[in-house]
């Protein structure tokens, strides 16, 4: 989200989900939408039926690509190059929105000077995308009355993830596709409340509502509300925590409902790091791979056993309602946190209900200022920012001005991924998701029907690469990288580019993240899950 904050001043989907149906052009990249966000994919199909154009940029021949007007298959890790190339075409052919650029943005000249060098022919050499296909896609997007960019982890999970996001923002601003209905730059969030966790300040640099911990004025406000003195130094990201646990500087971790042992890149390294901790407490619904390494495990309630709110990917706050009592001795996460705080002798944690907690959130968080259980009970549709009880909320952002004032263009050079194929590891591994499973599989793999659909990990291999690797009809392979190896079944398919293999990361017993590279984006601190070098061998 660091990219969208730098360009627009706000790191969330600019537009709401229902608006997708009325787009004139939808550009999807780095999102396997029909597998990972099926009900957003169905909105895209509705838009297509209403006459929208669809551009899909993805190395794999995913389902969305088969419905696309143009499918660009880039070599993984070359997104900055093809986006610069599209902008080159748009500027060269006079399709840029000059009025929007002049009135709403800054630093345009730097962008123009840079993308002049990214001719479609040069981009073809870098990315493998045919120059004329790139031109066609650029014209369709630029000429559309309303164009919306949808992206997901395929854009962000690179060492250049922030650059990729900034490039998407450049493309939208260049064509005036921000601040109106059915336009924008729209990151589709993978977890049901990842937006809410960010909004609530579960981040090392901000308090709830993206209020900076480094700002003296903000810190004073929270110090006075919480009656303590607060640290001013920005904290560690999850990626930093693993590194410092490994080096011995981080001594303890408190983990709530997360499974970094399957989700982290380079799992073998993460395991060694967590083993070095003096103490780890894990609060979860199952004994996850991470919980197994804990010193204390606290049993927590599932979503069906609690009240509260989740915030959807389009900034919409919605109710979670308790359906049944939790099993055994299980307690709600909010109760457990209050009790841990109580045992540590802290004040300010004597809440009796989630509703009371939301009242404190609304008092301290301007963008949630008007959110309440009462308004949600009345069926109001609340997209933040919602600053007060009378504020109807904000389905699309940046209408008259950007959150940061002017939108900021960033001139960005293409950089290669951190690890490229070589003679020893000749293939690019890219990881992703399946429709039937979710994240590290702790929930879906305990769901009989979903587990039946895809019960085991597999690797997608292009037939040409199967020949080069001498698979000779083998049904199972060993996949090796510089960090580790796993075994998995083979699926031969021409839906993947030659030179690229794909593994879904849901399966702990053949975890793709044993192989992935923990090199990360220097600012966003997102690991490069989408590109690393591997080789395959028949078993």
């Amino acid at each position, binding site marked *: 989200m660091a990219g969208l904050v730098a360009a627009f001043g706000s790191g969330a989907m600019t537009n709401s989900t229902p608006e997708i149906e009325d787009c004139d052009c939808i550009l999807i990249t780095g999102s396997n939408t029909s597998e990972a966000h099926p009900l957003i994919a169905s909105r895209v199909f509705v838009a297509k039926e209403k006459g929208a154009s669809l551009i899909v940029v993805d190395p794999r021949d995913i389902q969305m690509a088969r419905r696309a007007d143009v499918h660009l298959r880039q070599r993984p890790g070359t997104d900055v190059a093809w986006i610069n190339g599209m902008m080159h075409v748009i500027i060269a052919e006079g399709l840029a929105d000059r009025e929007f650029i002049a009135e709403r943005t800054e630093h345009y000249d730097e962008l123009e000077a840079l993308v002049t060098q990214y001719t479609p022919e040069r981009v073809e050499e870098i990315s493998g995308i045919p120059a004329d296909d790139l031109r066609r896609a650029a014209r369709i997007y630029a000429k559309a009355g309303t164009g919306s960019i949808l992206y997901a982890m395929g854009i962000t999970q690179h060492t250049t993830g922030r650059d990729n996001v900034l490039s998407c923002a450049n493309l939208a601003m260049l064509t005036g596709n921000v601040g109106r209905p059915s336009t924008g730059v729209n990151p589709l969030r993978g977890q049901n409340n990842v937006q809410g966790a960010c909004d609530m300040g579960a981040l090392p640099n901000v308090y709830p509502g993206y209020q900076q911990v480094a700002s003296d004025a903000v810190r004073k406000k929270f110090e006075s509300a919480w009656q303590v003195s607060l640290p001013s130094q920005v904290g560690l990201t999850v990626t930093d925590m693993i590194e410092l646990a490994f080096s011995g500087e981080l001594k303890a971790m408190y983990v709530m409902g997360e499974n970094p042992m399957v989700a982290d890149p380079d799992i073998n390294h993460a395991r060694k790091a967590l083993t070095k901790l003096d103490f780890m407490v894990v609060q979860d619904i199952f004994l996850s791979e991470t919980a197994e390494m804990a010193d204390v495990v606290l049993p927590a309630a599932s979503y069906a056993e609690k009240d509260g709110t989740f915030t959807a990917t389009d900034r919409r706050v919605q109710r979670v309602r308790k359906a049944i009592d939790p099993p055994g001795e299980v307690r709600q996460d909010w109760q457990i946190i209050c009790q841990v705080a109580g045992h540590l002798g802290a004040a300010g944690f004597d809440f009796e209900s989630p509703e009371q907690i939301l009242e404190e959130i609304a008092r301290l968080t301007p963008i949630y200022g008007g959110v309440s259980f009462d308004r949600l009970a009345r069926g109001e549709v609340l997209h933040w920012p919602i600053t007060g009880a009378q504020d109807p909320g904000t389905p699309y952002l940046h209408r008259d001005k950007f959150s940061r004032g002017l939108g900021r263009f960033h001139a960005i050079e293409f950089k290669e991924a951190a690890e490229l194929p070589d003679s020893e590891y000749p293939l690019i591994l890219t990881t992703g998701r399946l429709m039937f499973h979710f994240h590290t599989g702790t929930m879906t793999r*305990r769901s009989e029907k979903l587990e039946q659909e895809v019960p085991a990990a597999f690797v997608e291999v292009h037939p040409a690469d199967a020949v080069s690797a001498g698979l000779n009809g083998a049904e199972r392979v060993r996949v090796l990288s510089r960090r580790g190896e796993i075994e998995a079944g083979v699926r031969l398919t021409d839906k993947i580019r030659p030179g690229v293999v794909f593994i879904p990361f849901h399966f702990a017993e053949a975890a793709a993240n044993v192989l992935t590279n923990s090199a990360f984006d220097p600012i966003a601190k997102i690991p490069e899950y989408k590109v690393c070098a591997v080789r395959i061998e028949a078993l």
Partner: protein
Amino acid sequence: MDYHSVQTTCPYCGVGCNLGLEVMDGRITGVLPAKGHPVGQGKLCIKGWNAHSFVQHPDRLTEPLIKRMGRFQKASWDEALTRVATRLGSIRTKHGPDSIGVLSSAKCTNEENYLLQKLARVVIGTNNVDHCARL
């Protein structure tokens, strides 16, 4: 027999479809889409249709566990909470608040995420709090 349906938000991806959990005598028996809800428009994907099935799985943790000599043993809440507070407290005293890291959850509610970052900042005294948005 008691039967009712409770409308809530799906626990899987970030789209925010609503669904009805069908509850019979205190157990969830199935899922129905929320008719007329503007996000899902009365539809669910296959994960949503099965959003109840892991909730009542026999693998659910039901009691606090404390590891002793490398093996988990059942513990009372008071014992477990005391252990957590004592260990975090002594590590904070000995190595400082920034020697502790907190991972919050994209699967927990806003209210729970708010409280855990508050615990990190107010009680432990560190901004070392993050979650899996990057992963």
